[in-house]
């Protein structure tokens, strides 16, 4: 009797979630027939937006990993005054409406902004450039990598670290040879989530970087503009964006499996 209730609850949850997530996504994918969809894939405007999206989201991910890894390491290994505050600060971009994030970036790095005025003296302007797109994406997507990397580094068994210490390994060496390899799967997953979030970024980008084809018009912006004129073009772009995201997210889900297989193969070697 209890078992039946249990199953009923799971079934209801599944059905509800399917209606909420599966149905709309399915509706987008099936809206335009595959042949018409393929015919639109060669559209130069779409390819330009796609290229820009891939380049900027890759740069944003690299930037987040480079700046986020030291912070994740710090949060995972040390305790210091203000740690909680730093954690909250890092999580804030997830809560902030992206448009507000874009405005905040403008107020800081815009022509009349706090840092922007100093940059302008040096002849550098950031808004309306591809760099602004990368900054907007990095701002919004950074928490995903930092929290995953922090969790991964924090989950490394202390006994391994103690063993490394008894062998007189420096903290830097321990990080490179023990912590990073063990935390690699979570860092990879975090980086992929950051990339996926950067790929879908809209609000901060259009506010901070504007919308100019070939310079700042990424896929989500192109979809929004197309939506006002040509519904099917917008759908074709959305399907392409979804396919990309599915590809990346699925490969992360599968990566622990093949990473594990790789490790086992290495262990078997004499």
């Amino acid at each position, binding site marked *: 009797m209890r078992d039946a209730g249990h199953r009923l609850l799971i079934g209801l949850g599944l059905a509800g979630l399917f209606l909420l997530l599966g149905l709309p996504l399915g509706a987008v994918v099936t809206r335009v027939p595959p042949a018409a969809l393929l015919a639109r894939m060669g559209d130069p405007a779409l390819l330009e937006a796609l290229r820009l999206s891939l380049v900027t989201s890759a740069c944003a991910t690299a930037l987040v990993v480079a700046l986020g890894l030291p912070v994740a390491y710090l949060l995972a290994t040390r305790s210091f005054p203000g740690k909680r505050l730093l954690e909250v600060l890092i999580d804030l971009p997830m809560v902030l409406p992206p448009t507000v994030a874009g405005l905040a970036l*403008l107020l800081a790095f*815009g022509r*009349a902004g706090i840092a922007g005025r100093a940059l302008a003296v040096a002849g550098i302007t950031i*808004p*309306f450039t591809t760099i602004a797109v990368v900054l907007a994406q990095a701002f919004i997507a950074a928490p995903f990598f930092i929290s995953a990397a922090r969790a991964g580094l924090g989950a490394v068994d202390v006994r391994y670290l103690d063993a490394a210490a008894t062998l007189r390994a420096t903290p830097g060496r321990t990080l490179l040879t023990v912590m990073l390899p063990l935390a690699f799967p979570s860092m990879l997953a975090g980086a992929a989530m950051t990339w996926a979030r950067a790929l879908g970024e809209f609000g901060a980008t259009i506010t901070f970087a504007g919308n*100019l*084809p070939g310079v*700042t018009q990424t896929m989500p912006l192109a979809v929004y503009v197309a939506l*006002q*004129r040509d519904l099917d073009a917008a759908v074709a772009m959305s399907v392409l964006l979804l396919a990309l995201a599915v590809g990346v997210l699925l490969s992360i889900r599968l990566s622990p499996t093949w990473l594990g297989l790789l490790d086992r193969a290495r262990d078997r070697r004499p």
Partner: protein
Amino acid sequence: MTLPRWSWVLAAAAAVAALALAGGAGDGRRGPVLTVFAAASLTEAFEELGARYRGGHPDVAVRFNFAGSHQLAAQLEHGARADVFASADLRWMERVARLGLAAGTPSVFARNRLVVIAPAEGSAAVHTPEDLARPGLRLVLPAEAVPAGSYGRRVLRALAEAPAAVGGYERRVLANVVSEEESVRGVVAKVLLGEADAGLVYRSDVTPAVAARLRVIEIPPSANAVASYPIAALAASGHPDAARAFVELVHGAEGRAILRRHGLMPVPDTP
């Protein structure tokens, strides 16, 4: 699964409470609620019209949905319930009327013209529409897909064909574009923040709230493209009389005065 029995009672109570709250929201009224779908560029003018309408019909509550005309048309097409639709563009109203959603024939109640805006302080680079061609100027336009954007490009073409125009005017202006915003309000924001040296918007977008911080540069009427704003009561309205009264207010002398105050050109006054 060993959930205690009372947890089910609690869940049921929560569900009932949620339903009661959802059903009760907006139900603290006595009379009908008039729902008006209006183009984003009408926001301030229609809010004032709504207040005036309530003055004459205290039993009717007025509720607005302001968005891009295309978004509103799409919402109506997919079953959104509304009593009145006011569009910034004839095309979207025609679509709604063709689908049989309008009650009667839509009527144009106002027109709007484009102006060049520049920050009131700082760079004094732009004084005439000709200055838009100056090299290195940072210009922001509405995207071509939104009505203001297609009007804007028509204006640039007309300015380029004027006898006094500098050579390659249109090409040089378009080379200065740093962003194509998804709405006119986006253009206003970029100019207000000083990120752009100039922008092209509707006269009605220079609202009292921002007028002091913007400089308005008029475009000669001969080159200016004019946007038409049609309005219609909707066939699905549950309160056809209230809907018709709202449309009449917009067309009436009082309504025209309000529209004019917000930078729009009421139709009977327009040549």
